[in-house]
Every structure is written in C-alpha cells, then in structure tokens.
C-alpha cells in the first residue's frame, strides 16, 4: 500500500479496499516509527489528520470524492495552515499558529487530501541540505549519514521513506528539484505564477514557487491539478484557463526535441551523475526523442546573480519579523532598537542572518547599481538565453545537481560550496520557467536526478515526457534500503 501511486491509492479508496481513515492510520504509524530517525516532520497532528480522513470517507460515501480525496499529504512548513503551528523551521516562528490557510493549502484541502503534518525544511527555505532548520537536520532515507537536500528536504525524506505518498514543496533556487534528486523522487517547480504564493511564507518573492513532490510524474500531475489555480489575493497569480496537467501523459515522444545545454555537462559535474544522465538521454532517444546541442552561455552567472537577488528580496521580506505582532521577542531588551536587534538575532539562525546581511548590503546606498541592478540585468541575459535555446528545442534536459547526496556537515561551514549545489537549478527560477527533477539512475548507490526545463506554461508536456520515461524505466520505483 505504501508504494502505491496516487492514482492507485485513489482507485483503492474508490473500490472500498481501504478507507481514508485506515490509510491515514497506516501512514501515521510509519511516521511514528521512522520520523524519530529521519526528523522529516516538524509537526504531526494525528487527531486532526484522522478528523480529516473521516471527513474524506464521509465525502466519498456521499459520492463527492475527487481523485485525491482521502489520500494523506504533508505540507512543507512554509505554508500557513490555520490552527497549525507554522514555523518555517525557524525559532522566530517556533510558536506561530497561523490564523489562516495558504491558497495551496485550501486547494488541496478542497480536493479532499488529508493533511498529516508539516515537514521540516531549511530555515526560511534558505539552504540546500536541510541543515539550517531550527528543528534539527533531516536525514536522507537512502543513507542517514547523508543530507536529503534542501530546502524541501523534509518533504523529500518523508516521501522517500514512504511516510506520506506526496507532499508540497517550494522552490526558489532548486528547493523542490534538488531534494527530489537527492532522495530519488519526482518534483516539479511550475512556471512562476501557476500556484498562488498567498500564505506561502516569502523567501524571495520574484523567484518563489510552490510545487508538488511525489514518487512519479503522474502523481505530480494529479497534485498540480489540485494545487494550481488563479488566486485574487496574489497579484502575480496568473489568471489562466484551468488546465489538466495530466492531459499529455499518454503522448508518445516521437519527434520531441530535447536540448542539451553544453554548459550543464561541463566541469564540476560528477562522473557518475554524468553517466546516469547520459543513460537517461539514451532512453529518451530510444523512445523517439531527438537530442540537440544548445547553449546557455550565461549559465555560470546564475549563482552569482541569484545570491544578490534572492538575499536582497529576503532581507526585505524578513523585516516583518520584528517581535511586535507575532513571532519571537527577546526576553530581555532595553529600548525599541535593542528589542528589534535582539529578537531578530535570537530568532534567526546563522544562514538566514547571513543572507539578510548580504541582501541589506547589496541594496544599500552606493552598492545598489553595482550589485542589485547588475544582477537584474544578468537575470535578463539568462532569461534571454533560454528563449534563444527554445528556438531549437522543446525541452531542456541535464543533471539536477552536480553530485549525489553529500554527507551531513560536509558543506555546512562553507556557504559558497553549498550554494554551488544549485548551479543547474537556479536559472529556471531567475527566468520563471517550469523545471522538474525525475530519478534517472544511481551513482555510488545513490539516486541521481534528471532535470527537465520547459518553456513557460509547458508543465503538461514536461509531465507527459517524464511519464513516458517512467513507463519504460523503474528508477522512480526504487526504494531506500531497509524499507
């Protein structure tokens, strides 16, 4: 049961082979057993989960069930969930019980999914290893001496360990795709504006995007169908006709042009990862796709530009955490400024503070043009590179991350090495493009992710392409040892 896809679980529920309550109990039991080791969850609420599963069973009995009704789900703890503690993995919000639901939370609740808990993450989504959480590091189910990736590492670990069948994530520079790659999952960051950012605690507003994480492309398509949608409360939410993201799952790949950016296969890519990606590309060719060489000449500038833009936006977005209306306030302080400085110094962890300082600095008087404006111009060049590349291909493929999961602590003292882990994923955020990662093999017995980047709004084609691959391969069915 724990290995079933969402559509299989939906079928089992529909056929009455299992109730939502039973299914929820099954996963809650797994969480109780495995979470102490993995630390994938920040909070689990059995009572509420069972309440929601009973409601789902009732809904089914009334004949109103949808394809996802009754299936357990976890939310990354960046999504505001009414009545639940919503921490963003920060001491700042350790006791913050959200007074409202995020749009994505509302959407998945409306679909009847059963929320079992909130997953661990890098603090305020800042990190690529899930080591910056105030609530402790998350371990990779494939090897608990390794990181699960980040920032949606808790969601990735939870799905990989089969503690939930699917979860939400957010992706500002690779935070869905990189942990999906490192944990052997499928994860999709949609086009900017497809999922509302309302209720998703902001890291870098012009880059943040919510998306599904699950075992397969088909699961992600079903999840995205429920998550996506226009929301008047986010003025960057796109008012587009409702789309069925699963509509191209059956589409054959004959004639599909896959662009391979030469910059993504250059120095810095692990040989084992390279080999797994090459093998996947060969499989796509066997399925009828053609590969073409393309170039994204400004790829190398994505990380530098990102580490100006994302911290700049973050420094401002995180100013609301001042200890006045909610969140951490220092126990002892003198005047108003002292209250601010101490509350924020105590409430934020080192990586968050580092990024606030970077962002504050690059926006400050005398540096704005040299850093912030220059980064925005480079952002344009990077977006233009993709536009040019998509003249020659339908989708772009390459590695999701330069290497497989790395040991806990290996990069946590060297921010730059950590940042370079997102070297292939960041560009899609800068350009607002949809990107996904699918499992495509192993290197040193650890999962390797293949990244697929599409033109704006081409999620359905990307999911269809990934699904065709997954019909002919088994990588997405591989499970961590010992499960």
């Amino acid at each position: 049961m724990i290995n079933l896809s969402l559509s299989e679980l939906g079928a089992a529920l529909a056929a009455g082979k299992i109730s939502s309550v039973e299914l929820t109990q099954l996963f809650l039991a797994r969480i109780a057993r495995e979470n102490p080791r993995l630390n994938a969850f920040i909070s689990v609420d059995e009572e509420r989960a069972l309440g929601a599963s009973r409601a789902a069973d009732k809904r089914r009995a009334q004949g109103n069930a949808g394809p996802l009704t009754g299936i357990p789900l976890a939310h990354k703890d960046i999504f505001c969930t009414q009545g639940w503690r919503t921490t963003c993995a920060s001491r700042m919000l350790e006791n913050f019980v959200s007074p409202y639901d995020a749009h994505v939370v509302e959407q998945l609740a409306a679909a009847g999914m059963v929320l079992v808990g909130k997953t661990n993450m890098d603090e305020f989504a800042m990190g690529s290893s899930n080591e910056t959480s105030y609530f402790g590091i998350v371990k990779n189910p494939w090897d608990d001496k390794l990181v699960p990736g980040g920032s949606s590492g808790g969601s990735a670990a939870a799905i990989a360990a089969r503690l939930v069948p699917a979860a939400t994530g957010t992706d500002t520079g690779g935070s869905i795709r990189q942990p999906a790659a490192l944990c052997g999952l499928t994860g999709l960051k949609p086009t900017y504006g497809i999922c509302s950012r309302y209720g998703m605690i902001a890291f870098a507003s012009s880059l943040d995007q919510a998306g599904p994480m699950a075992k397969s492309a088909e699961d992600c398509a079903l999840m995205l169908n429920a998550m996506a949608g226009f929301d008047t409360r986010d003025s960057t939410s796109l008012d587009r006709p409702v789309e069925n993201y699963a509509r191209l799952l059956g589409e054959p790949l004959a004639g599909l042009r896959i662009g391979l950016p030469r910059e993504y296969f250059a120095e810095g890519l692990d040989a084992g990862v390279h080999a797994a990606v090459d093998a996947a590309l060969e499989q796509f060719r066997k399925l009828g796709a053609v590969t073409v060489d393309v170039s994204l000449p400004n790829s190398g500038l994505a990380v530098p530009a990102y580490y100006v833009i994302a911290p700049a936006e973050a420094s401002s977005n995180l100013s609301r955490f001042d200890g006045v209306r909610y969140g951490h306030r220092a126990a002892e302080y003198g005047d108003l400024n002292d209250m601010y400085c101490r509350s924020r110094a105590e409430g934020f962890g080192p990586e968050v503070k580092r990024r606030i300082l970077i962002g504050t600095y690059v926006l400050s008087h005398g540096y704005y043009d040299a850093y912030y404006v220059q980064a925005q111009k480079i952002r344009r060049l990077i977006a233009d590179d993709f536009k040019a590349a998509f003249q020659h291909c339908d989708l772009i493929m390459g590695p999701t991350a330069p290497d497989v999961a790395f040991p806990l602590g290996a990069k946590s003292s060297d921010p730059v090495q950590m940042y370079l882990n997102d070297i292939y994923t960041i560009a899609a955020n800068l350009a607002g493009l949809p990107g996904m990662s699918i499992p495509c093999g192993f290197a040193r017995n650890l999962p390797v992710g293949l990244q697929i980047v599409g033109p704006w709004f081409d999620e359905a084609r990307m999911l269809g392409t990934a699904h065709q691959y997954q019909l002919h391969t088994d990588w997405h069915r591989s499970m961590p040892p010992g499960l």
Partner: protein
Amino acid sequence: MQWEVVIGLETHAQLATESKIFSGAATAFGAAPNVQACGVDIALPGVLPVLNRKAVDCAIRFGLAVGGDIAPRSVFARKNYFYPDLPKGYQISQYEAPVVSGGSLSIRIGQGSDAQEKTVRLTRAHLEEDAGKSLHEDFQGKSGIDLNRAGTPLLEIVSEPDMRSSAEAVAYARALHALVRWIGICDGNMQEGSFRCDANVSVRPKGASEFGTRREIKNLNSFRFLQQAIDYEVQWQIGVLEDGGKIQQATVLFNPDTGETRAMRSKEDAHDYRYFPDPDLLPLVIAPAWKDQVQAAMPELPDAMRERFGRDYGLSAYDAATLTATLDLARYFESCVAAAGRELAKPCANWVMVDLAARLNRAELDIAQSPISAVQLAGLVRRVGDGTISNAIGKKVFDALCNGEGADADAIIEAQGLRQVNDAGAIEALVDAAIAGNPKSVEEFRAGKEKAFQALVGQVMKASKGKANPQQVNELLRKKLQG
C-alpha cells in the same frame, strides 16, 4: 543682510477609497484600535498586496487635473526601515517611476483685488501606503501601536521649491486642498489627517543662485500650523546663519503648543532606505483608454470655471474665485443662476457670498447642508430683481426661507404681505404724512442736513412696514421738500 526664503511642500492626500490601497480592510476613520487591520495590514507571514484600482484612478485624475504626465508604466518600490507602525518593515511607495510627473498649480496670494497670481510647479505625485499610529500615552512605559491606518492609500504630491514665503506656502496648500476635494479624490479632512503637509524650508541671501541647506518640517495638519511652523523655522534659520552658524539638514517636528520646531530624535541616524522594485507587484500599466475614461469623467476644473464665471456672468476675479472655492459652492451658485436667469448672476453671487455665507458660517454648516436651496434663493433674487420686494424685505424673506416658513419666496411674500408698494398715490400719502408729522426734520433738511432726509425716508418706510418702494419714496420726498 536680506534673506530669501525657499519652500517646497510634500503633501500627503488620503485618497477617498472604501478599502485600503493593498488590502480589503476598511479605511473608515475612528474605529476601535486594530479592528480595521487585516492580515495584509499587520503583515502576517505569507500575505501579499493587491492594488486598489480606485487609488490608481484617483492618481490619474489628479495628474490630469494639474496637467502632469501619467506614466504609461510605473513601478512600486519598497522603502525599507524599521518602525513599529510599519508592520512589514518597508513601506510600499513609488520611487524611480512615479505615476504622475510634472504639472502645476496656480495659486492666489492675498485677498480681493490685491491678490497676486503665481504658478507653482509640481515635481511628481506618487501612490503609497500610510503607516499605522504609535500612541504615546503610557502603557507601563511602553507605546501602543494601532494599525488601522496602516495601508490607507495616499497620494504624495511633491512641489518644486517655488514658494518664497509662508503666505505662498499656505496659498499653495489651500489651492491643492481645494483641488483634491474638487476632483473628489480626498475628503480634505485635516483634523483626521486626510491632508497633511511636510514643508522643506531653507533660506539664502537674496540674489544667491544656490539653495541653502533645508530642514524638513513633518506632518503639518492645519494651514495655521503650516504658516506658524514656517515662520518660526525661517526666523530660526536666519538667526543661526546671522550668528555665523550653519544649517544641518534635518527632519523637524512642529510643536503647536510652543510654536517651535525641534529635530526628530528617531531620524538622527542617517537613513538608508534601500529602495528596490517590489517583487510582489508587477509594473502598473495605464493604457491611454484608462486615461481617456478618467478625463471624460473629470468635472470642470476651478481655473476654467473662474474664467468662465468672469466671461459669462461678468463677475469680478475676486467674486469668481470666492464662488469656486469648492465644487459644491460653485454648483450651488450655478444652479441658482440657472433658475434666476443669467442677467441676475451678479445679485445671485452677492446673495451667495454675503447672506448665505454668513448664515452658513454662523450655523457652522457646509454648502451641501444649506437650509435654503439654490432654486429657493433664485426665486428670492428674482422677486428683488423685478421690484416685487425691496432688498431689505428680501433679507426678511431669506430668513423666512431658511427657517422653513414657506416653500418659496412668493409664498412667503404672499402669506406675510410683503409685496412692495409701488402705487404712486399710496406712497405720496405716506410722504405727505411724514412731512407733516416731522417738521423738525424738514427744517433741518432745508438747513442743509442731508442726514435729516434719511430720517424722513426712514419714517416713510416704517409707516409702510418696509414695503414702500424705496426708490420712489426717495424721489418723491426730495421733490416735495425741494419743490
């Protein structure tokens, strides 16, 4: 040394919207603390701003009214600073690309025929959100924060430093105040803070081409305070300079109790606002059609109306200016003229400016609350004009109309028997009686005392209960006395 004063004003006009600029909370004045502060206004994690179309409408309306340029594309920026009444830690404002640029306002300095005209150029006008309020009453040594006002839409209107005296500054502020009310974008209620000015004041030796160092007086919410604060500030600056000192750029507050200005302590450390485009808000695009639509709904503007009143009704510049002080007043006057006939425009003007103004003033009423309608007043003006009643009786009828003693002037004239006596025979009898009954006055008049003549006229009028045609009385009496 002769000093020249240089003043520029930054005015915050609260826009007349029902809801806030970026949220659906109400803007009504006077609610209990924080009950009109929604999640967006208190900056909960995850919430997002969505711009109120009406606020943009108001800005366009203003821009067109002052002949400024409406930006086809303008940008909202974040102004970052920490203050407890600023929940996000930044104010959403416009910086590099404001919605309105340029334009001008003509002002009149002084009263009556001595008034001088001057044109003040405008630099820009931009949309922004208001902050909340810090209440400094003692809460165990703490300040209380009320965020009801946070997010109220403001149009910040910035003038060029074109004013050369406090009187010019006040004239400008009054003209601007009249205009924003005229075009219906601001209620102009200064007690409630709907219209407040910051004055940038500097002095320089007369004839100097460089500006002196300016100090900014914050938050002046009455024309009297504006004048007092500038006068004090100018004397203070001249005093410092004449003592050989230098002016330091500063932000100062005016204390109405002492009539003095003092530097704000909270502004002592140089601010670095780190402006950058708000990533939550895409560019504001104003298509020509939108501008056209606002233009089409624009009322005739005061300058144009003043000119027309002079041209069409033969009113003096002073009368025209007085009658166009507010749109309601101008509309009242025009309704009155329309009902009375254009040839009676001048008497209509006099009745409105003298009798009606005095009555409204005494009762502290607005023209909209006038106890006498424009049509009623027109009826009265017509009866005075056609000689049915004298001017003096007219005032009686006016009072009677105001007191609701009759539906129109004719009804009151009839009911109270106030019709003017024009019958030559009847008047002659009264004149004869007065001459016969007041030999002393007759003697004095013949001795050359003109005053005695007036006493005799008074006797006739009294005997007629004020109804005798005064002109006929005059003529006949003089004829008889001299004859």
